[in-house]
Every structure is written in structure tokens, then in C-alpha cells.
């Protein structure tokens, strides 16, 4: 039985969800600094505040605009996710999300389930260009960074917490080090417990943030409508939190026939739920 080192834990609500930080040998002050960082980035990158950097970027399309290093990194990550997912992970879905009624945080109340109206989603590289310190968005496009931002933040946060830590931002989590018992961080995945070492995990689902049988938050960019592929939930372990997020969403969108082969090629472990 390996010795189990004490784990410092810190839980808080941010990004419209529950967040948890864990560290072996870390100080509580460092975990609190992590919370402040999450809150600062959350305020900077939310689409629900008109004053956020993301909203100002969405509201001023057509020309080059100076952006922060964080937004630049996330936009580059979004372009990479578009490429690696064959266009299925596309952050230019904001207009389609608004068309199905998802215009305010769900904590403020559920949207009214109106008649579904398809809203075409442009290919991200056609509407977004990024250069050092600046980016340009075409007028017909708007961006929601969603899960990519949480996975990206979890990856950066875990490294700031120390050499043996986990950051879990609303289910997008990233682990570094050997965990409290030296064999990895025990993490729940699809009803089982797995050990993560320098890996990330994420879940993509249409069961949450759903306000009718047809209305939910996960837009299929091929149709511009809420996804209906035969898979309702996919959880994935990958080499990083953001990678897990991209693979989980892609697997859910390709559906139950292709998802096993796709996950076998891109994930380290995976949970598929129809």
C-alpha cells in the first residue's frame, strides 16, 4: 500500500460551473492565486459580458484588432482544433447558438424552446485570421470559445499549481505529476476511476445545458443545429486538457459508428454513451 501524501484542495464557482484545484505539497495561497487567475480570464473571455475582450472582438469585425496574449493563444488553439477535427470543432458557432436561444447564462434562467432555425456556421479559417498581437474577424462571424477555453485554462493552471497537481474547470481537467500515492491522479471517468499522469480529460455531452428534446448547447457545424448524432456523451483522456476537449467533442459529433475508431486513433481512454 503506497503512502498517500496530503492533498490541498480548493473549490469555487467560476466560468458558470464548478471548479476544483488540487495539489500535493502546494500551498493554499497558490490555489487561491489559481482561482483569481480563472476569474480574471473568465471575465476576459466570456461572451455574456459586453465589456469582455471577446465580446469587443466579436463586436468589431472587419479589421485587425489588438488582442491579449491569452486571446491570441486561444484563437490559435481554435484554428488548430478546427484543422485536427476536420472542421467539427468550430468556435465560430456563436450565431448558431444564439439562434437556438442560448443568449444568456443558463444560471439566469432557461431559454424558451422556439422553433429550430438552422444558422450556417462558416469555416473558421475563412473568417478568422491571427497574427502576433492582433486578429481579424469577418463581419458575418462571431466566436464562442466554450470548452476550448476551459481545457486551455486547465492546462496552464495545473502548471502554475506545482509539479504534482490537478485543475478541474467544469469537467475539463488537466493533471501533472504522480498524484498523492505516486501512481497517478485518481480521476472519475465514465463510472470508473483511472489514473492520470501528465494527461488531461474532458466530457462532451448533450445531456446538460439542454432545455427541450431538440434544444441544447452543442451545435453541429455541418447543420447549424443542435447535434443529434446518436451519441449523447463522450469522455476522453488525452495528452492535455484542451486535446481531450477537442477529441471528445469530435467523437460525439462523428457519431457512434465512427467514434470508436476515431477515439482509438486520438485518445488514451474513452467513454462512449449513446
Amino acid at each position, binding site marked *: 500500500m503506497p503512502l498517500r501524501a496530503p*492533498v490541498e*484542495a480548493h473549490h469555487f464557482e467560476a466560468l*458558470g*460551473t*464548478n471548479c*476544483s484545484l*488540487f495539489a500535493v505539497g502546494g500551498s493554499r495561497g497558490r490555489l487561491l492565486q489559481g482561482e483569481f487567475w480563472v476569474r480574471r480570464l473568465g471575465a476576459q473571455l466570456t461572451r455574456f459580458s459586453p465589456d469582455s475582450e471577446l465580446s469587443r472582438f466579436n463586436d468589431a469585425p472587419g479589421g485587425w484588432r489588438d488582442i491579449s496574449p491569452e486571446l491570441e493563444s486561444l484563437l490559435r488553439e481554435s484554428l488548430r482544433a478546427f484543422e485536427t477535427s476536420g472542421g467539427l470543432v468550430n468556435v465560430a458557432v456563436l450565431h448558431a447558438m444564439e439562434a437556438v436561444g442560448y443568449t444568456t447564462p443558463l444560471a439566469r434562467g432557461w431559454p424558451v424552446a422556439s422553433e429550430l432555425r438552422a444558422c450556417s456556421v462558416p469555416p473558421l479559417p475563412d473568417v478568422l485570421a491571427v497574427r502576433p498581437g492582433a486578429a481579424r474577424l469577418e463581419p458575418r462571424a462571431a466566436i464562442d470559445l466554450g470548452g476550448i477555453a476551459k481545457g486551455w485554462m486547465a492546462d496552464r493552471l495545473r502548471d502554475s499549481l506545482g509539479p504534482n497537481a*490537478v485543475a*478541474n474547470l*467544469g*469537467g*475539463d*481537467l488537466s493533471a501533472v505529476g504522480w498524484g*498523492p*500515492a505516486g*501512481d*497517478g*491522479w*485518481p*480521476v*472519475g*471517468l*465514465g*463510472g*470508473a*476511476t*483511472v*489514473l*492520470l499522469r501528465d*494527461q488531461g*480529460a*474532458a*466530457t*462532451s*455531452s448533450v*445531456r*446538460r*445545458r439542454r432545455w427541450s428534446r431538440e434544444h441544447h448547447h452543442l451545435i453541429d457545424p455541418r447543420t447549424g443545429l443542435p447535434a443529434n448524432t446518436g451519441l449523447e*456523451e463522450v*469522455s476522453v*483522456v488525452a495528452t492535455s486538457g484542451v486535446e*481531450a476537449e477537442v477529441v471528445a467533442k469530435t467523437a460525439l459529433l462523428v457519431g457512434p459508428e465512427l467514434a*470508436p475508431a476515431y*477515439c*482509438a486513433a486520438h*485518445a*488514451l*481512454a*474513452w*467513454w*462512449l*454513451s*449513446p
Partner: protein
Amino acid sequence: MRAVILKAGATLLTVAATALSALYVTSHLKNPAAPLQPTVLSTSHGVAVSAPGGTLTLGPAVQPSAAQPVTSTYAS
């Protein structure tokens, strides 16, 4: 006359070589003992475990544990 004979001979030789080659190839489709045969890397698709509500598959880089999880991935 000599040129015609040469042309006919060359044509006959070509046809015969083609026919014999085709015969040889179709009768020797594969030699399993041939040297330098590349080994095919076996692809691991992980161990699939059926669980209530879905299927969990673990690749070789992820180990299961009986320990209590400190946290979980979940839909939010």
C-alpha cells in the same frame, strides 16, 4: 522479306515473353517466406469494459484504479 521476318520474330518473342510472365505471376501471387517482409505493427485498441450507460475503453497509457477519485470529468 528479311525485314518482315525480323518484325514477325520480334513480335512473336514479345508476345511469348508477355504470356509467360503473366502465367508466372498469376501462379506466384504471394510468397509468404519471402525475405524482407515488413512486420505489421499490431495496433492496440485498448480494453473495452461495458458499464451501465456506455462503454469504457482504456488504452495502455491509462490504468484503472480502485482508489477513490479526487475529482471527475463531467458535462457542465
